[in-house]
């Protein structure tokens, strides 16, 4: 597929077909763009279609209001194929089959209606700006006072705090009193930009499928025009039109919910058996109401978004607190060992864990790291820790305990969550250390004699990944005063300032957005670097005579120094244990 066929629907112009040949095509408002779209909200060079290894990709060119592919904002170049719908500001481009037959854009908004249905010839469209420019001027003297009163009333009602539901109710209330439609509906754009019916009211006795016309919605919400159908049945062409959507509708009014930022949705009123069809001054009244409502709607949407985010933040904080509370802060006063541990959480909810547990003359150790971030990882971490507590004591070997934990974690694990873990058991009498490495960073042994080395042994799969696996234990005998250091990859993968990964506030918690390294270089003059095992090893060589607590705290300090003011994007867990010798 080297030629790409497009059906271009600019906001401010006539639709046209375009074939993209060659290697690339720039889409934009600029006359220098390869596909020029008349849409004042577009960037001059908004997006680009580019051919890579036989496939067309769409990429955003840093436009002001981004590019959407099938209603998803484009974070990086994505492949396009027939049937895809590209949205740039308020213009649409449908990728079609080579024949030119427009592949139907993906439906799925739950609303019926087709794109090419005809609107009745008697439809009058008027730009909303005409209404918004000045105060509404009702055409007839009769209802003037009543109408002014209505608008005033709505404005006053909207000055007080109001919920979205109450606002929609209020609008429909007033509209039914004043304009007596048979059906009134408010459509709002959801977060994906799709129109959804948010409120519906009908006069008594009205049944059947509520009215929705995609074509009308497009006209009204994308072009920002108000529409008036005066008497559809009187129009010969409309009587013959096949559209089922309009069947029986005599008269219709539609107004966009517009504010300075754009269109939030629309209000549609319709009547089948109206003696007096809607008039232009009805449309003006509806526009006045719609513009008052739109302003308020935007505020409600913003307030709800803020409240939602705050709630989510609180929930995540709570999850974090619960998670941290599961970790032992003080350790059982076990004769013969000196132990200390720290888990420093990244700002988001993550999935690191550690545990230290006495079991008769022995002590169990565990450090783990759940794949991914967020609430899912936190829950998986909690399950892992609980399983460890339940299974480990009394197990014949570390291998047996870990194999059982794995079976439990892998069961019904459709999402394939997994946790890398290093589990060990130290015999306090003999210094024998038995351990299993389940896909985790190797533990270091700090010999009393001074040598520092990673513990040898096989690496088995992280827990939860395969349903049945027999994990393998390794064993070695510590000398008195030997120490071990367990940790997670947050230590060795900590990045220095100039880092390429930053957290972006405002995005869903748990998301880390990479910044192009070029930008990092330009701003900071340094390229990100990882702490790496070399730095860890060289630090540990200085720890020969330190207490476990000093080893842990000292490493945290080293990390802080190294990382500088770069944000921490992964949990950091450190556990140090020194065996003091047979008690």
């Amino acid at each position, binding site marked *: 597929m080297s030629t790409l066929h497009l059906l271009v629907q600019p906001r401010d112009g006539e639709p046209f077909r375009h074939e993209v040949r060659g290697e690339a095509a720039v889409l934009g408002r600029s006359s220098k763009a390869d596909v020029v779209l008349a849409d004042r909200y577009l960037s001059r060079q908004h997006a680009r279609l580019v051919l890579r290894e036989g496939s067309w990709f769409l990429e955003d060119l840093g436009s002001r209001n981004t590019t959407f592919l099938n209603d998803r904002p484009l974070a990086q170049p994505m492949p396009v194929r027939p049937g895809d719908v590209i949205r740039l500001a308020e213009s649409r481009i449908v990728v079609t089959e080579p024949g030119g037959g427009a592949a139907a854009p993906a439906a799925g908004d739950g609303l019926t209606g087709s794109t090419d249905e005809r609107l009745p010839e008697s439809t009058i469209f008027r730009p909303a700006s005409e209404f918004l420019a000045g105060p509404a001027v009702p055409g007839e003297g009769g209802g003037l006072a009543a109408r002014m009163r209505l608008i005033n009333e709505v404005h006053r009602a909207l000055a007080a705090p109001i919920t979205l539901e109450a606002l929609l109710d209020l609008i429909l209330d007033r509209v039914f009193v004043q304009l007596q439609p048979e059906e009134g509906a408010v459509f709002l754009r959801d977060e994906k930009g799709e129109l959804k019916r948010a409120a519906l009211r009908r006069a008594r006795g009205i049944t059947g499928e509520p009215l929705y016309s995609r074509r009308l919605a497009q006209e009204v919400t994308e072009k920002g025009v108000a529409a008036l159908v005066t008497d559809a049945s009187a129009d010969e062409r409309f009587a013959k039109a096949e559209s089922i959507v309009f069947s029986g509708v005599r008269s219709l009014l539609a107004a966009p919910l517009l504010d300075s930022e754009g269109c939030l949705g629309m209000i549609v009123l319709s009547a089948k058996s109206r003696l007096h069809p809607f008039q232009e001054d009805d449309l003006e009244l509806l526009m006045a109401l719609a513009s008052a409502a739109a302003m308020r709607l935007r505020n409600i949407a913003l307030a709800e978004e803020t409240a939602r985010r705050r709630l989510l933040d609180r929930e995540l904080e709570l999850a974090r607190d619960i998670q941290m509370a599961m970790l032992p802060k003080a350790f059982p006063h076990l004769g013969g060992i000196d132990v200390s541990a720290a888990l420093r959480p990244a700002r988001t909810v993550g999935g690191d864990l550690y545990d230290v547990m006495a079991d008769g003359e022995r002590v169990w150790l565990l450090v783990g790291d759940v794949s991914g*971030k967020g609430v899912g990882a936190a829950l998986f971490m909690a399950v892992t820790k609980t399983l460890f507590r339940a299974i480990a004591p009394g197990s014949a070997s570390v291998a047996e305990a870990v194999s059982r934990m794995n079976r439990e974690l892998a069961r019904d694990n459709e999402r394939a969550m997994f946790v890398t873990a290093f589990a060990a058991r130290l015999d306090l009498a003999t210094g024998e250390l038995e351990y299993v490495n389940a896909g985790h960073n190797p533990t270091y042994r700090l010999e009393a004699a001074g040598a520092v080395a990673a513990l040898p042994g096989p690496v088995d*799969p992280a827990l939860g990944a395969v349903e049945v696996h027999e994990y393998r234990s390794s064993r070695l005998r510590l000398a008195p005063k030997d120490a071990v250091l367990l940790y997670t990859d947050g230590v060795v993968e900590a990045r220095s300032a100039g880092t390429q990964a930053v957290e972006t506030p405002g995005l869903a918690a748990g998301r880390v957005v990479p910044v192009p390294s070029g930008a990092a270089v330009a701003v900071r003059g340094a390229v990100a670097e990882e702490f790496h095992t070399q730095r860890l090893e060289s630090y540990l060589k200085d720890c020969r005579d330190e207490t476990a607590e000093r080893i842990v705290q000292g490493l945290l300090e080293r990390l802080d120094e190294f990382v500088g003011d770069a944000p921490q994007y992964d949990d950091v867990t450190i556990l140090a244990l020194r065996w003091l010798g047979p008690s």
Partner: protein
Amino acid sequence: MEIGEERTAGALVIVPVGRVDSVSSGELERHVVARLDAGERRVVIDMAGVEYISSAGLRVLLVAAKRLKPPAGALVLCGLGPGVRTVLELAGFTSLFAVEPARAQALARVEAQASA
């Protein structure tokens, strides 16, 4: 990350390019799951263009492997660079995947598995 695709007579080749990290792995997962939901049973994931994969990315490969367990399905990975290979080894996952050096071998193996 970008995701390319190629369909051969016997298999679907999915080609992620760039970094498969905690952000982009979600996109890769949606892509792969959509293809599996649509009935793809013989899949090659060509990792030649992947410069980095995080544990979240590994999870996506595991999801695919679980759903394409032989004999009903087949998944073969190929084109693993040293970075990706190391991450796979560190997680203890090398034994969990069928891995081939390059796409041609991977396709041959997928077809062999399917006809076995």
